[in-house]
């Protein structure tokens, strides 16, 4: 059986600067896989390339058996790959309800969309309470909930979350992480990029540590969590 997402020797460059220097990893259906590493390691670049916003300069991406090279971003979503971008990027002047509907832009099953909007409100009750409010008026954590809810609206086979805990209060961060755990338990396949290595690794089946454009270490979430070099570099231990 082949993996849902297969990344082979992926390279991405901004002009002459290579941000991702040939990485390979895969995500099996039902797994949570995390990419951890410091700022500038190439994690966000990797996700933006997977969703088609950036063009790779080399390597191969295969999603659900189909090569993604040359497929424009708006068609990649249609294949079942949803991306909740770093910095949340909700549509600030549209309402919460409209943001969620945009997540389901390519779907035509009205009843199913309504059901999934309701599911997002069940998952994040605060969104339901404020559904008619402009999304820009939400707090950072609430915007993160909206970004995740919106990404789920496309019924993705693979959900990519970029730094969902960035800039959030500890309580809000816990809430977001608990939601990711909930999604995992529900069988959602997730590719998670995080700087909060502790939280990400405790959730993940597989983890990869990135450093300046390369994957330097891979293993199960638990192995990495107990790996001495990881503890030193990313978990603040000495």
């Amino acid at each position, binding site marked *: 059986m082949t993996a849902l997402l297969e990344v082979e020797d992926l390279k991405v460059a901004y002009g002459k600067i290579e941000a991702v220097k040939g990485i390979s990893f895969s995500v099996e259906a039902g797994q949570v896989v995390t990419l951890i590493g410091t700022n500038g390691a190439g994690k966000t670049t990797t996700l933006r390339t997977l*969703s*088609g*916003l950036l063009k790779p300069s080399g390597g191969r991406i295969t999603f659900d058996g189909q090569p993604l090279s040359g497929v*424009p*971003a*708006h*068609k990649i*979503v*249609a294949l079942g790959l*949803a*991306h909740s*971008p770093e*910095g949340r*990027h909700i*549509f*600030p*002047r*549209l309402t919460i309800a*409209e943001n969620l*509907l*945009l*997540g389901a*832009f*390519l779907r035509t099953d009205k009843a199913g969309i309504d059901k999934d909007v309701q599911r997002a409100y069940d998952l994040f009750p605060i969104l339901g309470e404020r559904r008619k409010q*402009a999304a*820009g*008026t*939400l*707090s*950072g954590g609430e*915007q993160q909930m909206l970004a995740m809810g*919106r990404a789920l609206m*496309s019924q993705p086979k693979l959900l990519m979350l970029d730094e969902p805990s960035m*800039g959030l209060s500890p309580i809000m961060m816990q809430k977001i992480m608990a939601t990711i755990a909930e999604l995992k338990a529900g069988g959602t396949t997730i590719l998670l990029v995080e700087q909060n290595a502790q939280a990400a690794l405790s959730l993940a089946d597989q983890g990869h540590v990135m450093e300046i454009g390369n994957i330097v270490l891979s293993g199960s979430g638990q192995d990495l969590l107990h790996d001495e070099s990881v503890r030193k570099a990313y978990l603040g231990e000495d």
Partner: protein
Amino acid sequence: MNTLPQQLANGLFLGSMYGLIAIGYTMVYGIVQLINFAHGEIFMTGGFGALTVWLWLPKGTSMWMAVPLMLIGGAIVSVLIAVGAERFAYRPLRGAPRLAPLITAIGLSLALQQIVFNLYPNAKSNRSFPQLPFGPYHLGSISIQSGDIFLIAAGAVCMTGLAFFVRTSRTGRAMQATAQDPDTARLMGINTDRIIVIAFAIGGLFAAVAGVSYGFKYGNVDYSMGFQAGLKAFTAAVLGGIGNIYGAMLGGVVLGLAEAMATAYISNIPGMEQFGGQAWASVWAFILLILVLLLRPQGLLGERVADRA
């Protein structure tokens, strides 16, 4: 006799035309941050497209038949030019420094003017435009010409139609999303290239309606009519808050009213006698623009919900 109601009406009619043209500036700017300075010429070619249809029609065709055909003809010409400009002039420059598409727009504007000037039969002077066979009407002290009625009716239909479309349709929502965050819009599955084409097409359509209205209102069209009208409409778009379609409508009406008021009444102010009249209308319009830019640079409706980080 009290001339105020008449001046207010004049301002409203003129403002409706500015607003119709301003929609094209504001929608395109809202989505691709480009000031399409060729938009005034898209308005002008809409007028000429309609005139061409009129000249093709057999003599004695009823105006009730002719007007819809003229509108369709004008719309086809304007939309094709607007969409063609996007596809062949602006799209290749996406991602280029801002100055490149701006210069391209100005070049396109001059090219379109000269093409009409040199190639359209007898376009070196004004071409007379057919007139609507009704009016003028008198409403108390206000006299309303047939062209004004057409303008205000067409303006109202277009504006409500657009507001309804943008607010309630799926494509309208996609347009708002693309304007607010194009990359994320793509992540939603929105083909943003298509949305950009739609924005240019709607702008072209509205410009054509304005161009036909201009013909009915003033009784003629000429190759250079897009220059002044385009500049005023651009002013209206900035005045209302560029990128905001309601702002374009409001900015148009405010600008039209300001022009009408200044034309009629400035000369009544002691010491300002020589600054009234039609000759100074544009000066006052642009002074208003400067004041708004100084005091409220985001325009009248340019307020934004804070994008929290």
